[in-house]
């Protein structure tokens, strides 16, 4: 497994100290070397166009390309996400403009070109556009199909909406884009407010078969203490959202078990704090939601959201799955206390990636984790820690501090993601390594300006990562063999005491053998004379 983490601020922007939070990512499926990313990053020199981040080498290096309309000097967009079509190389964007907070749907056929993105759609009273796109290669003409979740206050109280186009790549504005209300129930925001609505997060996800899922929150109450009561809803369309009654393929169980309306309520009446202020560290909470579908099995879906379990702290991410197209759901596969920004993706061989950020160390540290499971989280994988950084520095200049969302996607068997974090150049903050493009001294843990001398203050930067060559084979069932009877242990005879070894006397040196004097021959005995 190869883990690559890159601080995305380019070298020429070494002097920047922006709070580059709420990142999003678009990897071109047709050429994964081409990647676009977004964040709350203003154009440093002002002008009418805000920047996107672009990479042409798979995320190893980055540049800012100022092509997003509606910029205001010193300000970024108020929301921005982007995605590539499947094979068209077209990049689509959804923004809340900096100059008037209107929704714009954007398009460019060349994400690296200096030509500004084309505006395809404009609408006021909107929130949080969330772009998903693909090329429908199984459809005649292989059109690009784009689905943009958004919270459209023009249709209150049912505000959960998808703006979609079934042929988005080339047509003149609006290129087929138009809104579809996907909320089937009438939300309530009583007693605090008289207008019902859905929550900001409306999250579509596309399967190549034309099956589109969308997750959203159905608010059923909003207390004076800013506590939301909400259902977590998943709806579905099985034909690209193109029928006369789109997004009604998945129904809640018939009464009395359910209400029979479109969209299964995965969880009912859960409690979610809506805190648009420093709540977790310096971050706000209130609408965290993610959904992913298995590219090789359109009925296998994973869902994550955050709430107060049982109405009580801590703010907790839940991860669940469905193997029947969203009709029924597992219990919690994972929970992450003090977690925000869940982001899910499933790779080409069914590995599930679960990215999130969690406040640890008694609130002192923001950690960014990814867990990758080869068995659908039947067992909890060991989290890969991408970043572990101080939560108190820098002081927030605005909210969100890190983002209302981060992003994870998979192309083939590689996961690609993006998150924002404190940018102190400290290797201990990045246990799996990191590369900085901006000038930095890791020895002194100091950011440096373009002159490579002048220190620069710590800020929040976007970080790209990829995890390649992931091989997480499913854990095979273990066959337990019957335990064999253990034979009784034979009594061991007492060990005999070993007598002390007697010391051996030193071997005496044997003197040289004296030469033996030759024996003189004995004369033969003379015969005795007779007496």
């Amino acid at each position, binding site marked *: 497994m190869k883990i690559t983490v890159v601080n995305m601020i380019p070298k020429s922007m070494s002097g920047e100290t922006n709070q580059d939070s709420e990142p999003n990512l678009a990897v071109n499926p047709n050429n994964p070397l081409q990647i676009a990313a977004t964040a709350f990053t203003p154009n440093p*020199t002002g002008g009418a166009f805000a920047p996107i981040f672009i990479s042409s080498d798979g995320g190893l290096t980055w540049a800012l390309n100022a092509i997003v309309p509606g910029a205001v000097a010193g300000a970024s967009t108020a929301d921005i996400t982007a995605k590539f079509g499947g094979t068209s190389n077209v990049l689509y964007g959804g923004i809340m403009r900096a100059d008037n907070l209107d929704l714009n749907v954007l398009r460019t056929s060349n994400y690296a070109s200096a030509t500004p993105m084309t505006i395809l759609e404009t609408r006021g009273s909107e929130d949080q556009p969330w772009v998903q796109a693909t090329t429908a290669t199984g459809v005649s003409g292989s059109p690009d199909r784009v689905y943009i979740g958004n919270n459209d206050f023009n249709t209150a109280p049912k505000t959960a909406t998808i703006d979609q186009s079934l042929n988005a790549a080339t047509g003149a504005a609006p290129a087929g884009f138009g809104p579809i209300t996907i909320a089937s129930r009438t939300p309530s925001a009583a007693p605090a407010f008289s207008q019902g609505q859905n929550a900001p997060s409306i999250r579509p996800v596309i399967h190549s078969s034309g099956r589109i899922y969308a997750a959203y929150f159905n608010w059923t109450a909003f207390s004076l203490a800013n506590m939301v009561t909400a259902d977590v809803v998943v709806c579905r369309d099985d034909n690209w959202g193109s029928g006369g009654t789109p997004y009604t393929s998945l129904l809640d169980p018939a009464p009395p078990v359910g209400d029979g309306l479109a969209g299964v309520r995965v969880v009912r009446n859960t409690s979610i704090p809506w805190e648009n202020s420093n709540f977790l560290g310096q971050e706000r909470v209130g609408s965290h939601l993610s959904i992913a579908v298995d590219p090789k099995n359109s009925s296998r879906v994973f869902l994550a959201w955050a709430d107060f379990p049982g109405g009580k702290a801590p703010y907790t991410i839940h991860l669940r799955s469905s193997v029947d197209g969203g009709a029924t759901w597992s219990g919690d596969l994972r929970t992450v206390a003090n977690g925000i920004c869940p982001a899910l993706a499933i790779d080409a061989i069914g590995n599930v990636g679960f990215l999130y950020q969690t406040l640890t160390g008694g609130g002192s540290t923001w950690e960014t984790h990814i867990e990758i499971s080869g068995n659908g989280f039947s067992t909890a994988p060991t989290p890969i820690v991408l970043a572990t950084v101080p939560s108190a520095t820098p002081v927030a200049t605005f909210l969100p501090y890190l983002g209302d969302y981060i992003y994870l996607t998979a192309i083939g068997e590689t996961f690609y993601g993006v998150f924002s974090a404190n940018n102190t150049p400290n290797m201990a903050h990045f246990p799996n390594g990191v590369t900085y493009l901006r000038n930095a001294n890791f020895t002194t843990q100091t950011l440096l300006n373009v002159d490579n001398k002048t220190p620069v203050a710590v800020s929040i930067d976007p970080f790209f990562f990829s995890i390649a060559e992931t091989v997480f084979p499913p854990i095979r069932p273990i066959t337990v063999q019957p335990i064999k009877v253990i034979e009784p242990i034979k009594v061991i005879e007492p060990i005999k005491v070993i007598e002390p070894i007697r010391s051996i006397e030193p071997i005496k040196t044997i003197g040289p053998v004296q030469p033996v004097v030759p024996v003189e021959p004995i004369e033969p005995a003379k015969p005795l004379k007779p007496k």
Partner: protein
Amino acid sequence: MPSVHDLTQQAGFVFEAEVEQLGASTASGFAATSETAVVRVTKIFKGPASLAQFAGQRVTVVLQSPVSLKAGQSASFFTHGLHYGEGLVVREVGNVPPEATMDSQVNSAAQAGSDNDLTQRLAQADLVVTGVAGAPKKYVADPTAGPRRISEHDPDWWVSTIKVDSVEKGVHSGATKDILFPHSMDIAWHRSPKVKEGDRGTWLLHNRDQYSKSVPSHAVVHPLDFQPVALLERVRALLKSGQ
């Protein structure tokens, strides 16, 4: 040919530089063309803090056509950032020959631009008063004003009572004036004035926010809508000149 004043108003990054190479680029992701030039920055006249250390650095400028500059020539470039990668690429609004007084000309133009921004804001204001702010508190919306939407981009209106010293524009007869301000620190509102008790100065009160949406009552919403008391004479002069 546009004036330095006009060019400065249009440009976010103004610097003097010497042309090193025509038809070249310092950025690997930004291809050289016949209109690109690599220049070495010698002086910075106007720009964001993040580019303040670019003196001595090489920058790619996308020149306006037809290109008349030659290698070795110096000029003052009025630009906007285009591509920020390993190298910086800017697009020129225009360029002029170097002048010894360029720094003061640009500063003067920048000040004029700032004055113009404030003049416009004053012209748009419904009421301009001076005074000191009382302790702010959360604004309780009129329940008959209609349903409120819930969004992370909600301004979260708070109210402060201003003890009015003078009325500089518009009509107001009371000794105090309640003003609203966005208390939210959301990305859409964090630059709006955050009123604190004891803030004394000029308050530019509007009935629309900076996004042209109506507000519940007179409000300060734009960063220029509060001017410290020390700038009162400037405000008065701009009000007078704008009439």
